[in-house]
């Protein structure tokens, strides 16, 4: 939902790089290289806006989310949140920032402590950030939060195993919004849920955003779900953003051949629409992030690849900042005949 009083973005990520070092040997361990999980990713996010991050495994979408939260080492680039560069903050410096940025995880089974009753799971962040000092106060707040996410307040003394997957995901959301964050990073928040439950949780995300004005980074591989919740979508491939567009434009007018391939691969739940759709299935699989192709990383699978694509890395560019693409077909390289 577009913007607020000022134009300063809530979050500004600039040329973010996250490289995981690779070692060989057990005793004489030596560094043999690095996996470029995220390699030069830039985007901005306004308050109350939802940015979807989509891509196939290994594209760096989850690592990008973790890097914004500083839950993984950032090798290069900057993360500016609420006007402050948080890239080099130490643990103590990050503490107040963490209250403003929360995370919702994919696995509603692994992300809740099985030994804690719901009251403590939701109350813990309140205690950590000193938002509700007394135990009674935290309990009261946890009851409110449970109702906010569509559970009953009297469920407060139950343990995670007493809930279904969809209910656990609601508890995870209650824990995340307990501290009034300005940004919620949701990493595959509905993909572990049954189809009939996904819509409930998607609607809950939309309701909470309307009510509290949080911004979301919504990371998922299911483009239909991402498109539904997001204002803008960034498509990632092997550590880089290849295209950013408003949700509606991305389906109507995908520019990058990878985006086109991704959309074509996703079946639409309608046999008539499916029969009428042109089918171009892209060949091959995503190459290893350890040995990414030169130039444009998609050129090895791209049906429209040109000689320049193997040599020169295309930059993300576009008109008006609303629709940007990193592809030589759309952004001519200076001094190069395509």
């Amino acid at each position, binding site marked *: 939902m577009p913007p607020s009083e000022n134009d300063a973005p809530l979050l500004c990520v600039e040329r973010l790089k996250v490289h995981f070092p690779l070692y060989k040997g057990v005793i004489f361990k030596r560094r043999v290289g690095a996996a470029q999980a995220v390699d030069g990713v830039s985007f901005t996010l306004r308050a109350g806006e939802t940015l979807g991050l989509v891509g*196939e*495994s290994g594209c760096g979408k989850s690592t990008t989310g973790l890097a914004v939260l500083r839950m993984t080492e950032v090798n290069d680039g900057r993360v500016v949140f609420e006007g402050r560069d948080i890239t080099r903050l130490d643990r103590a410096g990050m503490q107040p920032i963490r209250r403003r940025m929360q995370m919702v995880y994919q696995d509603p089974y692994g992300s809740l402590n099985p030994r804690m009753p719901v009251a403590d799971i939701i109350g813990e962040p309140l205690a950590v950030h000193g938002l509700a000092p007394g135990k009674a106060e935290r309990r009261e707040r946890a009851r409110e939060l449970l109702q906010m996410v569509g559970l009953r307040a009297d469920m407060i003394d139950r343990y995670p195993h007493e809930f*279904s997957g*969809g*209910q656990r995901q609601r508890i995870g959301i209650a824990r995340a919004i307990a501290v009034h964050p300005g940004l919620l990073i949701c990493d595959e928040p509905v993909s572990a849920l*049954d*189809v*009939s*439950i*996904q*819509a*409930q949780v*998607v*609607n809950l995300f*939309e309701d909470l955003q309307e009510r509290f004005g949080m911004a979301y980074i919504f990371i998922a*591989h299911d*483009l*239909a*779900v991402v*498109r*539904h919740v997001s204002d803008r979508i960034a498509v990632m491939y092997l550590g880089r953003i290849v295209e950013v567009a408003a*949700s*509606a434009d991305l*389906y109507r007018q995908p520019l990058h051949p990878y985006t086109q*391939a*991704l*959309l*074509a*691969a*996703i*079946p*639409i*739940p*309608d*046999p*008539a*629409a*499916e029969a009428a759709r042109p*089918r171009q*299935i*892209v*060949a091959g*699989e*995503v190459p290893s992030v350890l040995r990414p192709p030169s130039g444009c990383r998609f050129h090895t699978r791209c049906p429209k690849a040109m000689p320049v694509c193997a040599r020169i890395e295309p930059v993300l560019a576009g008109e008006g900042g609303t629709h940007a693409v990193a592809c030589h077909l759309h952004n001519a390289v200076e001094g190069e005949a395509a």
Partner: protein
Amino acid sequence: MAGSMTSPLLQVRGLTVQFRTDRGFVNAVDSVSLNVDAGETLAVVGESGSGKSVTALSLLRLVPSPQGRIVAGEVIFDGQDLLTLDDRQMRAVRGNRIAMIFQEPMSSLNPTLTMGLQVAEPFSIHDGTPWAAALGKAKTLLDRVRIPDSGARLAAYPHQFSGGMRQRVMIAMALACRPRMIIADEPTTALDVTVQAQILDLLKELTQETRSALILITHDLGVVARYADRVCVMYAGRIVETGTARDIYERASHPYTRALMASIPRLDRDTATRLEPIEGYPPSLAQLPPGCAFHPRCRFAADPCGRRVPMLEKIGERHHRACFVDAAV
């Protein structure tokens, strides 16, 4: 095939599979009846606990024993009730006349044996082909599922293959003995979407070429729309609606099917419309509600729904549904 006078390739009647759990016996599959014609693709869709995978496993009598067992029904394949066969006869059916492809190819492959050995094995077991010839056939099969450099890949081990390549090998192995029917249980759920499209296209193409029937078990309504001729929708162990793909998507009649369709976002639709979720949660099989298992979540639930279990009734040429409510339109 639809409308032909010959009897279907597979006829399942009243199949009921029971599991022993710490909360007593549950019917994971309850009175399931379905037909599959030669050369046709039938999709079985449902959420977790709907019984779709157990149905698939029980067709080949692969239900984990002793906790699970088939307690009633007939599985008539090519005129023969598979449930009456002894173990030796059943082994001759598995892999040979009916093949199965599982979700996670890595756990279906032996990590300590080369791919060549594993792909060639069915020829030597079922046909008694000499080993050198079996390896030659294995190479031909890998070519057919378009594995590049197939000769060299025969000597490689499963971990040296990507997820998509492993699933291609599984398809190759399933096709090895030219089965009349292939059962694929969530064959692409573990794969990326561009690879999923490649694998399912390949599977569809090869089954069409060999005129094998395909039973596709999935939770993905998009995949069903793209690949299935007919569809069975399962809920809490029972088939609640079945029909041609067009019946199910354009004339869905059971409130569960209709609600499911309304709850999923579509790539080609306006994003401003709100999703219509199905309220509540799927029931536990150990504590099924009385009557129609969907009635506590059903917007149309009426008087008989909580008391009696609805049976499948014909509502169109090949369209059946199990529901008491007439006005569910």
